[in-house]
């Protein structure tokens, strides 16, 4: 039984034209229920594209994606996953609690049930007293916690996160990582997590998937054996540093490729 299966999947943009981009080529990835998997790699390696293929926000050019043994399209219709982005993306015109209710509203839940669930989710992210405030009255970290609450509101088995802590300061970021692990532990949610940060990937994940650009592909998968109970001491543990070094070395290989490719082309990527 797998929570997520990506088989031989490729995504080519502008196929056949001179502007063709091989965003992802022949990607295979299986994620078990309850597992936390991070996708890491330099920009242009296709990690966000892979996340969007899983979310069915993009259609693969070839290969197949299945979530919960369903096609990605069906999984989206059934709301089998929740999603969180780098920008919290809360709606300014809705209160915190109404923001959490949004996905439930779209599924046609009745008001009482929605409000009860929003309350439950606010307890989960430890912000129950902020229900009636507006998002812009909260700090960035709080907004991101509300976004996570929104993503988990329908109790989806899978959570997809696209650099959700990328815009936060380092202190808030570490706190949020701890909170995310706690929340996912309590709800036994499977997570696919896109990030730029090596310590973040290592601290959170059971497995770190290292990706490389041109064409976008998976170059290595590193198991992180830090156990299921992680806390602030984990950040000082030997195993933590060993895994960081392993991921860094795997990434360095892809970076060397990247730099060489740029030198040959004589263009800057961004």
């Amino acid at each position, binding site marked *: 039984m797998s929570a997520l299966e990506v088989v031989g999947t490729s995504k080519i943009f502008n196929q056949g*034209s*001179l*502007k063709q*981009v091989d965003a992802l080529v022949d990607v295979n990835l299986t994620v078990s229920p309850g597992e936390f998997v991070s996708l890491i790699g330099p920009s242009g390696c296709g990690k966000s594209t892979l996340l969007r293929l899983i979310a069915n926000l993009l259609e693969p050019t070839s290969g197949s994606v299945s979530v919960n043994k369903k096609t990605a399209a069906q999984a989206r219709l059934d709301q089998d996953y929740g999603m969180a982005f780098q920008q919290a993306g809360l709606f300014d015109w809705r209160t915190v609690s109404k923001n959490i209710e949004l996905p439930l509203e779209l599924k046609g839940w009745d008001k009482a049930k929605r409000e009860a669930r929003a309350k439950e989710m606010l307890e989960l992210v430890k912000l129950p007293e902020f229900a009636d405030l507006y998002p812009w009255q909260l700090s960035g970290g709080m907004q991101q916690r509300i976004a996570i609450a929104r993503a988990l509101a329908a109790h989806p088995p899978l959570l997809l996160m696209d650099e959700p802590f990328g815009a936060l300061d380092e202190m808030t970021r570490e706190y949020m990582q701890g909170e995310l692990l706690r929340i996912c532990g309590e709800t036994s949610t499977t997570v696919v997590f896109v990030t730029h940060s090596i310590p973040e990937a290592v601290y959170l994940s059971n497995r770190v998937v290292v990706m490389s650009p041109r064409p976008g592909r998976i170059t290595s998968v590193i198991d992180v054996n830090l156990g299921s109970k992680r806390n602030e001491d984990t950040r000082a543990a030997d195993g933590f540093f060993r895994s960081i070094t392993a991921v860094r070395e795997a990434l360095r290989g892809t970076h060397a490729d990247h730099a060489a490719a740029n030198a040959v*082309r004589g*263009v*800057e*990527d961004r």
Partner: protein
Amino acid sequence: MSGVNVTSTSARNFRRARQVGPAIVFGVAFLALWEFAVRGFDLKPYFLAAPSKIGEQFIKSYSRIWEASMVSGGNALVGLVVGTFLGIAMSFILSRYRFLGELVTPLAIALNAIPIFVLVAILNNMYSITSEIPRRVMVTLVVYFIILVNVAKGLTQVRSTHVELMRSYAASEFAILRKVRVPNAVPYLFTALKVAAPASVITAFVSEYFGGLQNGLGSRITSNIANSKNAAAWAYVLGACLLGLAFYTVSIILEGIARKGEAK
């Protein structure tokens, strides 16, 4: 994306056709519908004149329409130029003295809300009604406030980093004005001009409805309708539209010249 920036000409032409195509189709379909509606339902000319009739009239009275356009267009142009210069001058004064700016802004907002062109009724008495002066003064007033509000905004709403940078160089207020405020205000000026140019034509034109000389486009339209010559009136309306478009086009070209080489 570091894309190879080559697109074949045919692909570009195709894209352009897809951009412009629907507009052309809509325009032609609209004219055709209009023509057929007038003919098919035998609409009375007081309601709608057929586009073909309007075109006919336009060609027939081309020289008279041109003359009337010169009168209205001349008034608009004089007011536009004078109003722009006065507006720029005043905005420099306002940006220098904060208090003056705060004094004038609420007034400008209120003026924005009211149909200011009714002042022509008063201007006609203050000047000789048989001259173009009241109309030109009216256009000047309208243009003046549009330019004033926008350019003053451009001169004052500069990025604080830029001002702090200049201060760190111990630059004088005048240097900050020249190197930071004025360049920042240039795009605002041209945005304002794009609004002011058509507004000057419209004002010049509406001013003629208040009586006085009967030589411009506005008065010709009313007199043609009074004589039940509706196709002729539509031909003058067409002339008015072309005049408005001409003013707008010139303001866009000016903007293009002034902002050449700037980052998009």
